């Protein structure tokens, strides 16, 4: 993180702190205060959008650790979300567990699914791994449909809302608080995981896995660890999603979402916690824009225009970012900050 000039660390604690200056702390606290005040002045519709964005951020953090930091590309993240979603859905709806016990189980189940489908990553990488994770997505979806005694199959599964005692998280604003607390926690953890020994090992593996192995990084352990962490995040997000909608079905986890999460990572900037947030927020807002513009376009041009607009727009955004801004929004943001750091003397 680049700092304003004149900020010098005098001890190690200061040097490794994430927030180094008072201004950064003030901005952070102001942002959190604003975030948690949102339900006071936003309508339910906007709160819904923000809640979904929060859930998406959690998934994209997981994907960022797996793909952005460890370099193991996964296009099956929606499938891992579905594992978490159905685990907590089944535990709550069929066995009557409380949401708070089911959430860790969902995270764990998704993590274990990640471990299983991450096993080929020890032998393969790049395109081969992509194919393995695509296969993971479709196999998971097929299993969910096949095990219809437990999962409800194609009919879906009604899932209760979480509750603490008598307090049911039923209103939009209460669920907004729940998701945002978990999203903030997930962001905090994600930022710190990549600063640990494991995080440095991930980066070494991403940059050159053979060199990392020669240096003494245990590829087997750390690749699987990356899969586990990435999928735990997906499991938490999936669980939150179905408890929000109060219904679980395979249609909530289309293959397109797996691709779109990776698109968010590209648009935001890979290998950066802030990038995951930038990507999730900007592309989810773009989705919202499409849901507003789509019907107008459908009425004006042709009935199928809305569906095709969403597809074409998603594809074009990824194409344009890959060609013109491959390092993502976070790079642009750093440039802007660097510009203002020494302003008006920019040299």
């Amino acid at each position: 993180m680049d700092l304003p000039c004149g900020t010098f660390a005098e001890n190690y604690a200061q040097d490794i702190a994430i927030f180094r200056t008072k201004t950064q702390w003030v901005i952070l606290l102001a942002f959190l205060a604003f975030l948690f005040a949102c339900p006071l002045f936003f309508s339910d519709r906007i709160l819904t959008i923000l809640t979904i964005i929060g859930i998406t951020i959690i998934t994209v953090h997981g994907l960022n650790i797996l793909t952005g930091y460890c370099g193991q590309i996964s296009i099956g993240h929606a499938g891992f979300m579905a594992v978490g979603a159905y685990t907590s859905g089944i535990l709550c709806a069929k066995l009557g567990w409380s949401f708070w016990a089911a959430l860790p189980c969902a995270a764990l189940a998704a993590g274990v699914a990640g471990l299983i489908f991450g096993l080929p990553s020890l032998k393969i990488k790049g395109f081969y791994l992509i194919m393995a994770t695509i296969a993971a997505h479709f196999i998971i979806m097929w299993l969910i449909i096949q095990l219809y005694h437990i999962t409800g199959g194609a009919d879906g599964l009604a899932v209760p809302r979480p509750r603490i005692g008598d307090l049911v998280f039923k209103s939009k604003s209460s669920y907004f608080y729940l998701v945002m607390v978990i999203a903030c926690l997930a962001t905090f953890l994600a930022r710190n995981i990549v600063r640990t020994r494991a995080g440095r090992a991930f980066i070494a593996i991403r940059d050159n896995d053979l060199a990392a192995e020669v240096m003494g990084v245990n590829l087997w352990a750390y690749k699987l660890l990356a899969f586990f962490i990435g999928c735990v995040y997906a499991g938490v997000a999936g669980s939150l999603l179905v408890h929000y909608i109060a219904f679980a079905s395979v249609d909530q986890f289309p293959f397109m979402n797996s691709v779109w999460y990776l698109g968010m990572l590209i648009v935001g900037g890979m290998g950066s916690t802030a990038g995951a947030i930038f990507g999730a927020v900007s592309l989810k807002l773009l989705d919202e824009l499409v849901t507003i513009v789509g019907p107008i376009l459908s009425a004006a041009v042709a009935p199928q225009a809305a569906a095709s607009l969403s597809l074409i727009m998603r594809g074009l955004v990824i194409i344009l970012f890959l060609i013109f801004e491959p390092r993502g929004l976070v790079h642009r943001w750093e440039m802007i900050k660097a510009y203002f750091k020494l302003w008006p003397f920019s040299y």
Partner: protein
Amino acid sequence: MTFFLQLAITGFALGMIYALVAIGFVIILKCSEAFNIAQGHFVMIGGYLGYTFLVTFGLPIWASLLLAIVTAIIMGLLIERLTLRPLVGQPVLAVIMMTIALSTVLEGLATLIWGGEYKTYHGVLPTVTLRFGELSIPSETSIGMIVSVVAVVILMLLFRYTKIGLAMRATADDVQVVQSAGIKVTTVYAFSWVIACVVGIIGGILLGGVSGVMIPLAEVGIKAFAVVLLGGVNSIGGAIVAGIILGMLENIAAGYLDPLLPGGGLANVFPFIVMIIVLTIRPYGLFGQARIERI
């Protein structure tokens, strides 16, 4: 036994079409190291083009095929120039994401132009019924098989005896040497995309004749990936053999196991199971070269 053989022989014919789609994929991969996720979408577009030319315009089969090939050439050139050329030298992930994005755009365009509806031109393609005793190959499948064989032979000859074929094989081997020998690599790349588009679209017209066209026809691309992985990613011969193996296995497995499973749909998930098994046991496929890496 007759049931088994019937399944196997239908699977064989289907496998030839998979092989045709897979070859387009392998050609791009060999020449430009780009993994083309959008190959299945070329097939889908091909199916819709076949519908447009054969049914909407009512053209005869040869004119439709010719027009479709011309469209494919233009499409291949545009795709290569506009999306892939700027990414030369970028990491693998960027290229793969680009082809994924491309597939999304193609899907969107197909939805916009053809409404994403189920279109069929069953019976428009000429019919040839092959009979072996009690066994018969359904007519559209057999015409698909014949065209696939012809296309594969033409491609083999192209690679063996023409200058551009030689340049493509050389590029697959070593780009730098090719450049220093004065061959324009960008032309080779463009040509490989054109060939991939053409074989994809021919495959699409054939498959469209067999099963009708819909947006999910693009999923045949995913079957082609399984074929490619099984055969070894840089082997055209491997793609053909693996295409036949996978087509037969899939048909037999679906024929025997689908009645036993409540939800059915094993044929759709079968390629993925093959993929995972191949990737775990023998990542470079049956005929591929094992990768040797140096730091």
